[in-house]
């Protein structure tokens, strides 16, 4: 009785995590087409929700990575309990909500892994239960490499898109009307593709956790994939979160978006979707936020005359680095509280659950009371977009004029030098 209650509690918390994941990430996919006016906000959020739902059913490779590999489960390995997974999830949910409230850039995926790893290390009182080589090869390395890959590809694609659509008069070399309006409609599709990719990667993480719970409770054999009802429940939770959170964010979004032009946005989103889909297929559980951010920076660099604000990128990266250890600490504390040998056992678990619930309610109340402004409503990816400075046309002309003047002065000086 007590045992099954625990399993139900963990599944409920996991689905809540999935929900927060959905509303954390809607704007990543849909903010740009809404800002350029290609789709109406309500339609955009609806499309994103449906595609997340579909994406969740497409591939379950990422779910298998989480349920069978990172933590040594089942016979022979060290058995982990639903209590530990509960503690890990608590860490992930709290970190996710705190960062969302403060508008800090963070990754739901890293919060989840951090929470689970922290809970397992504390709960089993040792490092042997965590498969660190799998963590390194399937979580940490993809977290670093995937944004870099997506950024590089986005850079090339932006260059390609602008080069192919640049129209100049064949004789005079003057610029013709560029007519790049087609990219605005293209963005409807590229954003949809990002939403679909989000479903194939992020919804899988919760599936993996629930499957892990079922395995640890003995309701499912180790090494098997997620069951159909698990897939369905997770898909619905992330779609619901996408719809609910997206609506809330977009209502307050206004015109706070960074200057992303349709052609650039199309290139960035296509690169993001391609990188996430390819990684999902190989079971890499990466952060969709990080990949989308990498693409936005890459595509910004691909535009003429842009410069990078390395300081801004450094700040964002620092936030990324903190996520995993911070949620590991929260997950570890929750696990310590509920540990039978070192903590308070079941009483500790109840205390942890009540504290967690109180914190969630507190965060919700604060978020309602706060005026939702750009600092917490705007998508993290758009904040990253601010890291690339693209001069306006006027500034570019001024820079070019300055360069010409400098050149003239240099030739004059050279000529003078020659006269002497």
């Amino acid at each position, binding site marked *: 009785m007590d045992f099954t209650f625990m399993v139900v509690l963990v599944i409920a918390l996991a689905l809540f995590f999935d929900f927060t994941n959905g509303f954390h990430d809607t704007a990543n996919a849909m903010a740009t087409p809404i800002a350029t006016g290609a789709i109406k906000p309500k339609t955009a959020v609806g499309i994103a929700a449906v595609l997340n739902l579909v994406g969740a059913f497409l*591939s379950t490779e990422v779910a298998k990575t989480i349920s069978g590999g990172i933590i040594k489960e089942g016979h022979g390995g060290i058995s982990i309990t639903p209590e530990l997974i509960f503690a890990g999830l608590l860490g992930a949910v709290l970190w996710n909500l705190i960062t969302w409230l403060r508008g800090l850039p963070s990754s739901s995926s890293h919060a989840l892994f951090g929470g689970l790893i922290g809970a397992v290390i504390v709960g089993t009182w040792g490092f042997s239960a965590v498969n660190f*080589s799998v963590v390194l090869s399937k979580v940490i390395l993809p977290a670093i490499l995937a944004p870099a890959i997506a950024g590089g590809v986005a850079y090339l*694609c932006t260059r*390609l898109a602008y080069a192919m659509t640049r129209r100049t008069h064949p004789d005079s070399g003057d610029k013709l009307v560029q007519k*790049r309006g*087609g*990219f605005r409609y293209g963005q409807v599709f590229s954003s949809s593709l990002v939403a679909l990719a989000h479903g194939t990667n992020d919804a899988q993480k919760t599936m993996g956790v629930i499957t892990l719970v079922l395995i640890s409770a003995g309701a499912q054999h180790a090494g098997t994939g997620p069951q159909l009802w698990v897939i369905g429940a997770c898909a619905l939770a992330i779609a619901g979160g996408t719809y609910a959170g997206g609506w809330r964010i977009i209502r307050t979004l206004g015109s706070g978006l960074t200057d992303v032009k349709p052609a650039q946005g*199309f290139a960035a989103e296509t690169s993001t979707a391609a990188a996430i889909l*390819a990684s*999902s297929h190989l079971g890499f559980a990466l952060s969709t936020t990080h990949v989308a951010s990498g693409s936005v920076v890459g595509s910004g660099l691909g535009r003429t005359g842009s410069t990078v604000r390395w300081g801004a990128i450094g700040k964002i990266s620092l936030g990324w680095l903190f996520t995993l250890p911070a949620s590991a600490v929260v997950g570890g504390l929750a696990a310590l509280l509920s540990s039978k040998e070192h903590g308070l056992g079941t009483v500790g678990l109840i205390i942890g659950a009540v504290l967690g619930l109180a914190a969630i309610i507190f965060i919700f109340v604060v978020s309602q009371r706060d005026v939702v402004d750009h600092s917490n409503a705007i998508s993290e990816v758009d904040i990253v977009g601010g890291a690339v400075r693209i001069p306006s046309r006027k500034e570019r002309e001024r820079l070019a004029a300055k360069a010409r003047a400098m050149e003239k002065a240099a030739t004059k000086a050279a000529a003078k030098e020659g006269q002497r």
Partner: protein
Amino acid sequence: MIDWLAFLAVAVATLVGAVVVVGLYSLGVRLYAVSIDGNVPATRAAKFSAYACFAACALTVLYGIYLIIPAFHH
């Protein structure tokens, strides 16, 4: 232990997929721009080619999604 080949596969798949899709779509946008210039005799051919590019782009995306769905490859 670390499967570098898998990372290479992700990088190549991302590059090829994105470049093909963006390239085709850009070509379509370019051709469509030519087709609405008006004073060129090749207007209709350009319009047709533009639509062909958009269609090819859509098919590429669908093929990519087909590739990653395990249910189709049993």
